[in-house]
């Protein structure tokens, strides 16, 4: 007989928490290996290809950092929302809305204002676009008790259709030869890149600053405390005089606004025009959910986990080419890693004893 008993664990050290994450990722990679085996691919080869594709060359490292920028921005914003148990699944739409606002501002101002004025205004507009798309579900949740998972998701679809409507209709550029997409943004609105790469450094610096500021906000300010109370104990929050609507609006404006920043980076830093939603975002809003979770909802750690998942995206692209695997492979990898990460929490919070014998 094998007897398994579990008991709660109360002394959770940062080291144990870190090791649990490592263990979860390791177990996840094992599970992914099984999927690769079933798909007829040598898992050792696939995993090493993913790693070599993302971190094994200068080109890979540059691409990984490029893709880490939106993930860090969105992931850091999500840590704040998730701490308040606000399940913001709408970062994808918030990113797109940021891109739309940024494009509009750039096209309207970029030809008359210098870059020193245009770029900050484009960033501001992007933040506002994302924030607007983030506070709608906050209002609907707090004032009308409507589940935010559904609303944020529906707003993703609505924004994607709205954006497509713009680029095939009123915003369709004259220089696109009839293909959907806006004209290129004016030069004054474009973000500089590190030479020889696609890394738009202004956004990279912004991402790191945002992660640091958010960490301070969460751990050192009254607002951070309120956000946590809103999530953990709504009843106690009422007695403590916390204004739910105000707190939720602020935290979703920040979470959505950071996704909006990511949209600015994609449009003004990489594509230089507004194209199809799928080409502007490629699922950063969803991947960032895992980034936030791996970061244990700590915005500072989101920098590191953002880089890890950017590596998975870049490495995933690499194995698509070298192993002929479909694009969906990255989604499988992400899904499995996320499942193992949340299951790992059980082993962080419980002691498990296995006894052999009678």
């Amino acid at each position, binding site marked *: 007989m094998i007897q398994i008993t579990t008991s709660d664990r109360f002394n959770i050290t940062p080291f144990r928490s870190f090791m649990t994450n490592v263990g979860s990722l390791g177990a996840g990679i094992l599970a992914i290996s099984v999927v690769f085996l079933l*798909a007829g691919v040598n898992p050792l080869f696939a995993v090493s290809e993913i790693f070599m594709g993302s971190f094994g060359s200068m080109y890979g490292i540059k691409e990984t950092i490029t893709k880490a920028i939106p993930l860090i921005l969105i992931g850091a914003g999500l840590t704040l929302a998730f701490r308040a148990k606000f*399940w913001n*699944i709408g970062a994808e739409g918030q990113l797109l809305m940021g891109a739309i606002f940024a494009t509009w501002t750039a096209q309207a101002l970029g030809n008359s204002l210098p870059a020193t004025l245009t770029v900050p205004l484009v960033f501001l507009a992007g933040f506002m676009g994302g924030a607007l798309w983030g506070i709608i579900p906050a209002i*609907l949740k707090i004032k*009308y*008790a*409507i*589940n935010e*998972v*559904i*609303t944020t*998701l*529906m*707003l993703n*679809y*609505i924004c994607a*259709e*709205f954006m*497509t*409507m713009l680029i*095939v*209709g009123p915003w369709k550029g004259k220089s696109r030869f009839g293909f959907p997409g806006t004209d290129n943004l004016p030069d004054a609105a474009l973000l500089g890149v590190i030479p020889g790469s696609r890394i738009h450094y202004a956004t990279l610096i912004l991402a790191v600053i945002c992660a640091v500021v958010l960490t301070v906000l969460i751990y050192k300010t009254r607002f951070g405390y309120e956000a946590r109370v809103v999530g953990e104990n709504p009843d106690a929050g009422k007695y403590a005089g916390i204004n739910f609507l105000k707190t939720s609006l602020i935290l979703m404006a920040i979470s959505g606004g950071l996704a909006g920043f990511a949209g600015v980076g994609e449009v003004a830093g990489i594509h230089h025009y507004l194209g199809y939603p799928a080409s502007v975002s490629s699922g950063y809003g*969803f991947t960032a*959910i895992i980034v936030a*979770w791996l970061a244990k909802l700590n915005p500072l750690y989101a920098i590191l986990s953002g880089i890890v998942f950017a590596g998975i995206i870049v490495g995933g692209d690499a194995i698509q080419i070298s192993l002929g*695997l*479909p*694009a*969906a*492979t*990255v*989604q*499988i*990898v*992400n*899904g*499995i890693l*996320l*499942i193992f990460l*949340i*299951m790992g*929490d*059980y082993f962080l919070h419980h002691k498990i004893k296995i006894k052999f014998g009678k």
Partner: protein
Amino acid sequence: MEEIIISTIQRTMVAGTPLLLATTGEVLCERSGILNLGVEGVMAVGAVVAFIVTMTTGQPWLGVLAAVGAGMAISVIHAFASISLQANQVVSGLALTMLGLGLSGMLGKPYVGRPLSIKMEDVAIPYLSDIPYIGKALFHQSPFFYLAIVLALVAWFFLERTRLGIQVRSTGENPKATETQGVNVYAVRYWSVIIGGAFSALAGAHLSISYSKSWVEGMTAGRGWIAIALTIFALWNPGRAIWASFVFGGIFVAQYLMQPLGISPNFLAMLPYAATLIILLVISLLDAKKLNAPAMLAAPYKRGER
């Protein structure tokens, strides 16, 4: 004009069918206290498995069976994470959706753009289909349509009128008290999640072997999420899910009806998603307190805890 009305009703029923199947499954699951946000992913897996098996065997019903099996199997992941390991149900469901969408894309890649030569034939109900107008619109449909309605009614009867159904509901309302009555809360919840997954997979199978007869990555197009919203709209009652789903089927069809009016197709494509938000808002404005949501929805249950 008659033709248009008949075909509109018919297409509304077709568009509502997968929504009804998925919603019924989610009602069953949520009534036991487990929120499953994996519907979209399980639906995609159901769609691709049904398509592949139907294409290789030439037997649509074998495809349906395989899809149901696959849907149940993949749902075990969510059940294990959220019931046994008390993981966060929101995140676990999202992970299931990511995994399901990914797996369906991987499995279905060689089948993209290949039409199904053997399709599931529509069935005309004898006598009833001879009724003028509604006979053609309502009683000459895909087997999935009848199946969806029958299963929703069965689910309603099960939940409201049977002993086992009461156990499912009380598991969602007060698991601790239910456990003291000698009911195995974990087992009830496991089965609710797994059966719910079977329903989602059926919805997916309808999409790929009856509705469109082809496989395209991402063909579920958010229907799984709409089903989760419909669960609220139906106030966790499979009976109400029937008309709620067909109201939404109508909204899907309205897209195509309005297109000749010169409205942007992308604007019309927003309709189902915008309608979801508006309807949830209306429900909330009417009477949010009477929503009837299971009291312990999404709260993990831990045996032996006070």
